[in-house]
């Protein structure tokens, strides 16, 4: 009895546990190996490439930094190193680096998955190719921003099977990145993405289209100083309508309204939606100092428009674009003018301070494409070029200008007026070689509301690029730092 009983108990306890007892798989997440079996699965991988855009373009991310680095804006506290170009190697904005590479890694992963996927029919083939096109577009966009912000960067186009192999990869020259990744990716995207208005993406306006690929490709060529290729590319968009119909929205003030998301002028937008928990806090952080006056509440007011820009609006009699773009503050008290485009009207802005707004951030829109096309045509065909400039001016009731007046300075002025606060100014100044001149002029003159002078000497040219994040160099010491830092 005694023996039987104890053997019985022992058997119970010993038999319960086999080797498989220790094999535990996550219960609330998927494993990469068993997913991505259908186009719908693949779509989720593409969505994951879009997602980091929100953290990149959140208000204290890229827009905040890039506007302050231009001569369009600064901080009311007037002390940020972005604005005054006193950066050192700690000012690398590693969050931007991380988010762009997150996008790239996610794109690489899903592109590899799509490459291995065998579509069951033509419709599926069309669908997954479009996904690959979008992932390619986003990868190109990420690299395009990276090289403009950091210069040469590590080129990663495949996933790392062994993460240790990422050490020692080094930096690839900017032009190689353009030629090996950005341009091929954008060309692939143009070939394979849907057109704006295609039924497949009728309800998904935030997805990248052929038009987005063409416009960014045009911008890439302009940045590479290849006006001819830029013109050729943008011609497909504007003249050949190869990417569908685009047109300027009649009312300039309504381009950014949430009700007008993905309108006829929109080419690529970062989508925000407060009810989905992904509201935009642009108005709270960039404009609320103004909102304070209307709503009687306290604001943070991280951002202030430079007087320089306000003066330029005034000087050129820009009534509509001025009113829509910025606020001049009130007369009786010094106030911080802010970008208004991406915010609700001021009296309403306070209602959104807690939830954020639905205002999208436009990476590019048709007016940008038109002005770029004009800029690309300018050296070869100023007469044709000025048509597109005047098309943009006409919308905001500005008189046409003559082809003879068209030059780079004028182009930069037009772009500044039309695109103020949309994240273009700094890159425009850099690619046209005017950055040191324009920004230094701004910082060395009594050019803000308190007539402060921030620099006695021009900005150092090396600071047009950000330092490579020190944390990355610490991790992989073969990574070199940008000159000057």
């Amino acid at each position: 009895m005694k023996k039987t009983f104890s053997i019985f108990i022992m058997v119970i306890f010993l038999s319960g546990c086999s080797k498989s007892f220790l094999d535990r798989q996550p219960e609330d997440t998927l494993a990469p190996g068993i997913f991505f079996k259908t186009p719908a699965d693949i779509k989720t991988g593409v969505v994951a490439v879009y997602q980091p855009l929100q953290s990149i373009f959140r208000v204290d991310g890229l827009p905040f930094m890039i506007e302050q680095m231009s001569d369009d804006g600064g901080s009311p506290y007037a002390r940020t190193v972005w604005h005054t170009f006193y950066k050192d190697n700690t000012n690398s904005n590693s969050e931007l680096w991380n988010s762009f590479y997150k996008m790239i890694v996610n794109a690489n992963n899903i592109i590899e998955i799509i490459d291995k996927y065998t579509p069951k029919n033509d419709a599926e083939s069309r669908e997954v190719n479009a996904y690959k096109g979008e992932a390619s577009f986003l990868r190109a966009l990420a690299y395009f921003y990276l090289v403009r912000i950091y210069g040469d960067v590590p080129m990663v186009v495949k996933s790392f099977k062994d993460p240790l192999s990422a050490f020692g990869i080094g930096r690839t020259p900017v032009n190689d990145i353009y030629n090996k990744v950005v341009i091929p990716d954008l060309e692939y995207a143009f070939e394979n993405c849907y057109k704006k208005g295609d039924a497949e993406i009728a309800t998904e306006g935030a997805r990248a289209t052929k038009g987005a690929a063409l416009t960014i490709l045009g911008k890439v060529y302009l940045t590479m100083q290849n006006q001819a290729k830029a013109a050729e590319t943008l011609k497909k968009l504007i003249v050949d309508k190869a990417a569908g119909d685009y047109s300027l929205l009649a009312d300039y003030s309504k381009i950014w309204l949430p009700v007008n998301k993905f309108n006829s002028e929109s080419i690529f937008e970062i989508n925000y939606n407060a009810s989905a928990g992904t509201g935009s806090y642009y108005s709270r952080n960039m404009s609320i100092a103004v909102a304070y006056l209307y709503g009687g509440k306290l604001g943070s007011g991280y951002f202030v428009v430079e007087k320089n820009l306000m003066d330029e609006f005034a000087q050129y009699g820009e009534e509509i674009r001025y009113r829509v773009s910025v606020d001049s503050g009130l007369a009786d008290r010094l106030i911080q003018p802010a970008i208004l485009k991406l915010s609700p009207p001021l009296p309403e802005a306070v209602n959104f301070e807690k939830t954020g707004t639905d205002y999208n951030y436009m990476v590019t829109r048709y007016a940008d494409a038109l002005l770029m096309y004009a800029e690309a045509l300018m050296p070869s065909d100023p007469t044709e070029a000025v048509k597109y400039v005047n098309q943009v001016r006409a919308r905001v009731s500005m008189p046409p200008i003559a082809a003879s007046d068209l030059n780079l300075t004028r182009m930069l002025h037009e772009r500044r007026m039309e695109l103020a606060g949309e994240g273009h100014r700094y890159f425009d100044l850099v690619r046209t070689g005017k950055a040191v001149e324009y920004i230094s002029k701004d910082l060395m003159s009594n050019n803000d509301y308190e007539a402060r002078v921030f620099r006695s000497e021009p900005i150092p040219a090396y600071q047009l690029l950000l330092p490579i994040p020190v944390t990355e160099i610490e991790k992989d010491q073969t990574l070199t730092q940008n000159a000057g830092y």
Partner: protein
Amino acid sequence: MNLKVHYYWLPRPIISKQTLKIMKLVAIILFAACMQVSARGYSQITLSENNAPLQKVFKKIQKQSGYDFLCTYEILKEAGKVTINVRDVSLQKALEECLKGKPLTYVIIGKTIVVQTKEKDYHTVSADLVALEPLPPPPVEIHGRIVNQQGQPLQNVSVLISGTKIGTTTNNDGRFTLTAPDDKNVVLEISSVGYQSKKISVGKQTEINVTLELEVSGLSDVVVIGYGTQKKRDISSAISSVFAKDLQDKPVSNFAQAISGKMAGVRILNSNNAPGGGTNIVIRGINSINASNDPLIVIDGFPLKDGFDKTENPLNAINTADVESIEVLKDASSSAIYGARASNGVILITTKKGKLGKPEISLNINSGFEKMTNKMHMLNREDFLKYMDDARAQAYIVEDPNFGTNNPDLPQWKWTDSDETRIYNWSHFSSNAPFMGQGGTYYDHWIWVTPETKAQPYDNDWQDLTTKVGNVQDIQLSTRGGTDNIKYMISGGYFNQGGIVKSTGYNRYSFRANLEIKINDWLKTGLLLAPSIENLDVMYNLEGAFYDIVTIPPIYRAYDDNGNPEFLGYIPGDYREWNLPAYSNPLANDLVQDNRRTFRNLSTLFAEINLTKGLTFRSEFHTELRNWERNYFIPSSFPDAWSTTRSMGLNNITSRLYWNSQSFLTYNRTFDKHSFNAILGYSAEESSDRSTYISKYDYPTDRVPTLNQAITVLNAQSDARTNRSSETMIGSFARVMYNYNSKYYLTASVRRDGSSKFGENKKWGVFPSFSAAWRVSDESFFSSIKQYINDLKIRAGWGTIGNSGIGNYNSLSTLNATAYVLGTGSTLSPGYVDGRVANSNLGWESSKDFDIGIEADLLGSRISVTVDYFYKLTEDMLFSMPLPTITGFNSYMVNIGSMRNRGFEYMLQTRNIVGNFNWSTNFNLSYYKNRVLNTGKDKRPLIANNSYTVEGKPLAGLWGMDFIGPYKDWEDVKTNPIVNADNPLWRDRSAPGTNKMTDVNGDGVINGLDNTILGSPNPDFIWSMTNNFTYKGIDLSIQINGVQGGDHLMTQMESVMSKGLGYGNVVYSYFNNYWRPDRTDAKYAAPTRKSWDGTSDRGTLVFKGTYVNIQNIVLGYTLPKSIIQKSGLGLKNLRFYASVRNALMITDYPGFNPEVNDSGNSSLSQGIDAGGYPMTRTVSFGLNILL
């Protein structure tokens, strides 16, 4: 049948000890022989031997007759050879035949044949006696008296003849009388509870007087070890014990607080003093970088899962009143049997069990109150206004274009200039004059304090306003008793602590039933059940809250005209008129509700089978069911400086089902002087966790905090979710313990564990250990000094122990869910993204540990000393290795690197005065040194939260710039490196009164590269002393704990203690010591409204955590038995006591709590004080009743 007994009545041969041993051997041989034949009956004897030894013949007779022989070896030797030839004769005939012609005779008594020499025969033994009962030995009466060291008689002392059941107890006068065989080998065992047992060799004495000494060293205490118990005397590894009596009378929520200071090498840090808050337990230092640093807690054989939690202490669920003993296994040789999770030490908790006897009811009531200690000394209104003035004067002076030059064309700016002069000077001469702006009011205030500010009548001490007197109640009722078949212990307890901050509080209802049932003589079973319910109210923003409390200026109004807290804290009017920031009133923190409720049930079912003598099989099945719920609510009325708070509610439920099954065989035998104990066992466990999380925003009303009221789900994916996770572990273990005569000890154990957490290639780990001990005092060479050193043991152990304290699934890759809105509506499209890199080689972190110790009892056990040295080396550390971001991941977990801890522990127990008045002292002291030996290929420092860890240095050095006093004057500025000299924006901020830092790298510029290690958070040593006094019914216990050294970095307090900004409040030690033109030798930088010089002077914020704390004073009075008996209430015992916890904290540490540890048990960030809940002094009164 015990042959030894037969000796006693035998005539005493004059024999040597040597002979005695041989005789015993022979006896054993005979005994063994007769065992086999004794079952046979009487039979006829047939013998045919020629010249055979007598022994051989006897054996044959034994075999055939079944009768035992008893004789001495000498007889056998001297008897010579025998020749005998008989067939079927009687036993007597056969015996006569073989003893014929020899000087021997025999007698048969019972079934034993005693062979004797004829000459030496004292008794006339004839064959007649064969049929009679054996003769009783001549009764020798032994008288004696037993007294204590004061000569007072001890009654009820047990006196037993060793090896027999003959015994008695002493009477009231301490006397005893015992009848013993007249044998000089009689040994008396004298024992009494509370006294050291003694063995007395009687010899020829008949009057024996014995003095018993008090038991202090507890050498005979039984100590719980892994899977068994052992006498403390026989322990060969580093184990510390604490018993119930040390845990009682303290109104604390968990046992860790009660054992604080009781054990050398075990450091208990109250890192969060809030009610129910977390307690760090560090046993012999921190051993891991990224894996767990928590000791394994095993309660009645059940290894618990919970680790450290700063806010909610999982240890609270264990009712201290139910604890019988706590053992801490400090070294690998004791803990390796728990291999898998033992690397940070093991704490074994044994709860009170039933005991034989009538039910005994115990009631303990304790109630008291607590108050904040260690207030920070903040400025009052008057001084605060002065300080504001100074800060503005400094800002003004820094604007002086003359500053640093001697321009005769400009007016001389003086610290003492009037407001009007300041405004005039600044707006006309300062290079920053445009800052003043038109209309100017806004910027004027940088340089003068407004009349509105100065006119404020308020002089609030915010620390007083926001804290109150807290209260503590602890009520414990239990009963225990038992019969031969059932033993039980049942208890119920209620503990309540209302904190010193209104929104904090903790209460616990706990129950326990321990039942043990003896089914028959080989089967025992039992059930232990311990449900508990805990409610915890957590303070909003624990760290920040007390920072806010000290920084809010005294001139801010606390309550409005209606007596409600004025939440925005402004004085009516535009805050900018004051030029002060918008402080939110810290009283508003009480608006936030954060309640955590935990239900937990621990249960254990066991069966124990006695297989054969010494061999036991025990099987235990443990389960834990834990349900935790958090309800959090921020009402819309909660103010913050930016008014961005949305009303928000959160509900989070987690549940865990954890089972653990263990079965083991124990073999326990003693052969003569050889003691064996061996176990062999197997364990398996599984824990599965589930959680639900919902949070919603925007309540229409603040009255109902439940989520059904709220309107908005902000992020559908992350704000409404459930999660699941599970882990499993299998272990098999074996251990052999051997000792020879309690003199030489050897122990070896091995455990093999497998864990689901590790990669497929490295799931299993093997953890061996060895230890040995030598009781030197039992050696013969020691006997000369044994009267001074009563007991001396040297022990040493080595072992490997493991750590698997990481999250689940770290070796596997996962897909994380994300989402993006693709359309115009709010429909989220799901996204999946790689969440983790797989590492199939992820395996165990292991620590190799060596310990050597000496234990000694001196001077009649008046003094006992234990000294331990340990060396612990952690290898293959579970390390979160940083990856380049281009991989898409920040880090992944690998086994890399090593770290060591080594140190000494000393323990001294003395009985200083013994008598009516007793005074005893327990003292312990320990220290250790930590060093990170290897961090793999990546030699970069690990910098986290102002802490710096690098190869070759101790963990978590405090990190920052080293402040060396303010620049005294312009000369000083010009001749020393200045701050951020390479940055024009900041370099002109270096001026007299600003921070001067050490130029660590000597490049002439002070910048981020000049960070250095400012201190070490590890104390030099920690110590504790407990003095116990008793006099008649009065008992007094005073425990003092101390920490020597160890730096803390008060990261958050820069603006409060060393670099005032001119608006938040500051401490007096800063106010009285900052730079002014009339105080240029000052210790600290001048406060300034123009403060930003781009540095942070952590160097001024490093303070030694040295303290001496009178941790506990307990004064009790036990009513004399006579009074209790007279009362007729049937009481057995009644005691009143008063206790004071944290009675007096002597420290120079300026913060609220010198034990604070902001990052909890993170190894990479130690000694950071970012605020936190203040220490409290608790005064309580209690009652122990035993029925």
